[in-house]
């Protein structure tokens, strides 16, 4: 487990820290790299939160990508994953990541485990723990080892001590939304 990608839906510090905690559990003390992808211009709070905490920050242009356009976002995340051959891809269990994650997994033909609350190493095999039957049970899930390990995590279930800052390379994604992807979803009103 060497290369891990995380996707940020909100870009908040809490979300980032939870995903980084899960990523560190996957690395199991080994040396590896963590890349983060977020829809951001690079000038906002999300980019500021991430900078210095991951090895690579991939910025998806907010003029071209929208968090609710899950088909396009998933296509970009999948293409990035294929290019960089990530060993694992982590999502938060957010409103839109709940759609983006399974679509990304379908594109990569990879197994996906939802709502992960713990990550365990069982004699070298990674088990992802999640609730089932409306919380009446907990299950350990294993993914096929020849595909990226994919999961969405319950961010409130992961808490780790802060790690040291690392040199962070920021990359403005040149990924154009795939012309072949049919979104068909348009944002209307926003309200509270």
């Amino acid at each position, binding site marked *: 487990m060497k290369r891990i990608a995380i996707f940020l839906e909100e870009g908040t510090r*809490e979300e980032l820290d939870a995903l980084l905690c899960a990523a560190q559990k996957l690395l199991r003390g080994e040396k590896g790299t963590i890349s983060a992808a977020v829809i951001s211009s690079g000038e906002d709070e999300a980019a500021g939160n991430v900078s210095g905490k991951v090895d690579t920050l991939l910025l998806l242009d907010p003029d071209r990508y929208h968090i*609710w356009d*899950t*088909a396009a976002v*998933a296509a970009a995340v999948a293409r990035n994953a294929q290019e960089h051959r990530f060993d694992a891809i982590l999502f938060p269990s*957010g*409103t839109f990541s*709940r*759609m983006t*994650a*399974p*679509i990304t*997994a*379908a*594109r990569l*033909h*990879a*197994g*996906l*485990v*939802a*709502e992960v609350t713990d990550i365990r190493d*069982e004699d070298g*095999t990674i*088990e992802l723990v999640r*609730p*089932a*039957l*409306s*919380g*009446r*049970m*907990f*299950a*350990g*899930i*294993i*993914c*096929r080892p020849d*595909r990226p390990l994919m999961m969405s995590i319950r961010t*409130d279930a992961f808490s780790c001590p802060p790690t040291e800052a690392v040199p962070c390379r920021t990359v403005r994604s040149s990924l154009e939304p795939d012309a072949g992807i*049919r*979104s*068909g*979803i*348009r*944002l*209307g*009103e*926003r*309200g*509270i």
Partner: protein
Amino acid sequence: MFRIGCLVKPVPDTVEAVYDSKEHVLVRNRGPQLINPADATALSIALEYARKNPGVTVETVTMAPRSALPHLEDLIRRGADRAVLICDPLFAGSDTYVTSRIIARCLQRRRYSLILSGMSTLDGGTAHVPAQIACMLDLPHLSGITALAITKETAEAEVRTEQEILTFEAELPALLGIAYSAAQKLPYIPFEAVTRDVSGSMEIITNRELGFSAEETGSRGSLTRVSWAREYRCNRQDIMQVSSDEEGVRQVLSFLSEKGFIRP
């Protein structure tokens, strides 16, 4: 013709469910079952639209053992025009990815103007299947929908995030995931329909029609597998009583924040 497909799944009663700890699967043909509540919400929306718009038909599509047939017959008696059951021993033990492939291939056999589904199920609760089917069928997708207005060419959908309420317009055909609503109920079965023979409106689809290989389905084709599963027993907690005043509200908010249900 405006045809609505509704993905419907019978799920075990979460209290009485039977789990095979050896095979790591839910024993779906034992124990009481109910229609997944969010799927029932989605179906009731479809039936309501069909009632108000002559010419609109509603079909349910279900992947389950044959023990699901009585549930599907009842859905026809409640107003669905047709029920499709995808059932084959080869499909047992399929994970969400394989399940999505199987259902997607079945849906491709008919032309749907709109496909509705519950956003997640009581048993697995992954919310993977609607999104993955939409991807496989190249359909616009949105989930977590709390209100839906359907027209012949578009659907206006409301989605609530933690911070705001968003309204979207989806081009049809689309696959939309509906959040459970206690206010949106399936119609009752009319008295005269209780014993009606609806077998002519049912169709069972097996792998003969869908054509998967054994390696593509069940646990062999799955990309994830259950390594272990254990029941979670709640420990009895001391009851905390709060008063219905400012202090009580503060205590409840503090509890919810501490447990992670709300942000501080």
